[in-house]
């Protein structure tokens, strides 16, 4: 019933005012990403399910909208943008020199898997730095993230960084079975230190490894990580991962943003492809992260051609708006003075509109042919600044009605332009 009046669950309309907020965020981010040398790409909203589900993990695949094409192939709506970008790089950018810097501002779609209901369509703005495996690249992504959020007007931005492979290698080093590893990981993720210690005691951890786990879970700053010694070769490449984090810290210090970056050993992202640092950005006034990302070195090769390490992040536009509002930030509105031009002589109305528009004034031409009173009433209700009633020639003074002061005067178009010049 009434489906023609509603939008499906998890989707919504955006009013002009809301859209102005969206545009503020999107345009600002575009501007910053471009200043850092990133180029925008756009991918189709629908793709083959294989292209979108490669390597992202079952959770995301489950929450992807899927449907059938005419020829029977399964299509899907993109649930995130890293897979489409990886496909674009693999198929369209083979000859482009690396590193490749790309960004996107796109809507993505997810079935709500959570009890906690979420939007099923939301907008993401994100960047990918592809073809480079240095800590400098990781550092660039983090400082671009911090810089972007700062430029939006957000205060007290912080980024918490973990490392997908560091956690994975150390969990592996415990020698526990999958089930117990799962318990250990969730205890770390719960930040329940009491039970974490108890669990490790019960499962006879090598005291050294136990100490490493506890130290990591207490670490809050990236540079504190250096005090943890994990010399043992039994811990996989944990030593390399630590070095990576410390190098990232150096880059961040050079960028002057190290104070905004914290360490969170337990941090994991819900998407599977991450291999290196992973991170989340937040502000104290909003209970949910603004976005996040990480390094994914084995992901692009799953598309079958190129073996390219990469790193990137995505921000949720809506959450950025919520965070700005929560911080009391007034999103600047493009409040341009609007002028309504009316004339008994249509060609004169058009000519006057052209003159004003050429000068950058927002002009609406009256198309109602209503009488003066009705036109004034409309102007009052529609947020219009001035109504200009043009006579048979632009050389003759026009009657200009100032909506706010409810007064009229006769001036030429040129004089009117000068008069409102300050309000443009």
């Amino acid at each position: 019933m009434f489906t023609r009046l509603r939008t499906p669950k998890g989707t919504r309309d955006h009013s002009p005012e809301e859209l102005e907020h969206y545009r503020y965020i999107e345009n600002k981010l575009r501007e910053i990403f471009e200043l850092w040398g990133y180029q925008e790409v756009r991918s189709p909203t629908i793709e083959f399910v294989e292209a979108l589900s490669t390597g992202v993990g079952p959770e995301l695949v489950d929450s992807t909208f899927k449907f059938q094409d005419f020829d029977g192939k399964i299509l899907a709506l993109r649930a995130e943008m890293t897979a489409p970008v990886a496909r674009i790089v693999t198929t369209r950018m083979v000859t482009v020199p690396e590193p490749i810097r790309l960004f996107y501002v796109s809507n993505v779609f997810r079935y709500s898997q959570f009890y906690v209901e979420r939007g099923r369509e939301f907008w993401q703005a994100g960047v990918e730095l592809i073809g480079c495996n240095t800590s400098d690249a990781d550092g660039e992504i983090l400082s671009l993230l911090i810089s972007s959020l700062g430029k939006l007007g957000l205060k007290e931005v912080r980024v918490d960084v973990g490392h997908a492979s560091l956690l994975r290698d150390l969990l592996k080093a415990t020698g526990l079975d999958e089930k117990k590893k799962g318990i250990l990981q969730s205890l770390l993720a719960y930040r329940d230190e009491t039970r974490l210690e108890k669990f490790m005691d019960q499962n006879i951890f090598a005291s050294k490894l136990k100490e490493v786990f506890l130290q990591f879970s207490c670490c809050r700053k990236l540079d504190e990580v250096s005090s943890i010694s994990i010399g043992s070769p039994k811990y996989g490449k944990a030593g390399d991962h630590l070095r990576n984090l410390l190098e990232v810290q150096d880059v961040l210090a050079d960028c002057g943003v190290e104070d905004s970056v914290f360490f969170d050993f337990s941090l994991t992202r819900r998407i599977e492809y991450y291999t290196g640092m992973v991170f989340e950005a937040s502000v104290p006034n909003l209970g949910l992260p603004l976005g996040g990302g990480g390094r994914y070195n084995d992901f692009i090769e799953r598309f079958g051609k190129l073996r390219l390490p990469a790193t990137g992040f995505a921000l949720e536009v809506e959450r950025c708006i919520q965070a700005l509002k929560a911080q009391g930030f007034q999103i600047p509105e493009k409040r341009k003075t609007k002028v309504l031009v009316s004339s008994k002589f249509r060609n004169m109305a058009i000519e006057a509109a052209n003159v004003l528009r050429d000068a950058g004034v927002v002009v609406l031409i009256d198309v109602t042919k209503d009488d003066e009173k009705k036109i004034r009433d409309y102007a009052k209700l529609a947020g219009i600044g001035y109504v200009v009633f043009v006579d048979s020639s632009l050389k003759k003074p026009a009657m200009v009605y100032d909506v706010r002061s409810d007064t009229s005067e006769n001036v030429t178009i040129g004089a009117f332009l000068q008069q409102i010049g300050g309000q443009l």
Partner: protein
Amino acid sequence: MKREIRIAIPSKGRLKQPSIQVLHRAGLNILVEKRAYISKTSNPRFEAVFARAFDVPVYVHYGAVDLGITGHDLILEREADVYELLDLGFGNCQLVVAAPENSKICSINDVPAVARVATEYPNLSRKYFEGLGRQVEILEIRGTSELAPKLGVAQIIVDISSTGETLRKNKLRVIACILESTCRLTCNKIAYRTFENEINGFLDRLRRGGSQ
């Protein structure tokens, strides 16, 4: 000066009083005002919010409150992505599958292929039966699921049981345990980052209070 830290406390039911007591032992007294959902506490930095235990995980997830006291079972059921900083050691219970004593259902294997399950925990129930590869129809109800088999609307129920008394009274038999739960101090992930020192201090007081 940072804003107050909000802690959600179950507004009724078996978790309410022990929650208030555990806070009291940690030196946090709620200055109760009748019918007020938000109360001041003896610590000016903390504000108490009374909410249904079922809703606490959601409030914490969204950061509507910073901390919350609720059951582990409810956190899992609502799939809240939150920290569980401390096991508060009360509210022990099990989420169980139960069938009428006089039925032929004595174990999960006896559950008929077209069984209907009455439960307040549709999410965990669905996952449990899916994990076993069994198809069941989930009937989400509020409150007394024990009634459903009596009315013949469901063959089995999934509900929490602490002593087993309610089940026995209603002539129901436990045929499987889905999970064990206790009451937890949950925390919004971003609130923890923002208020880490204060929250850790509070945790210490809770741990010390709990061991007395």
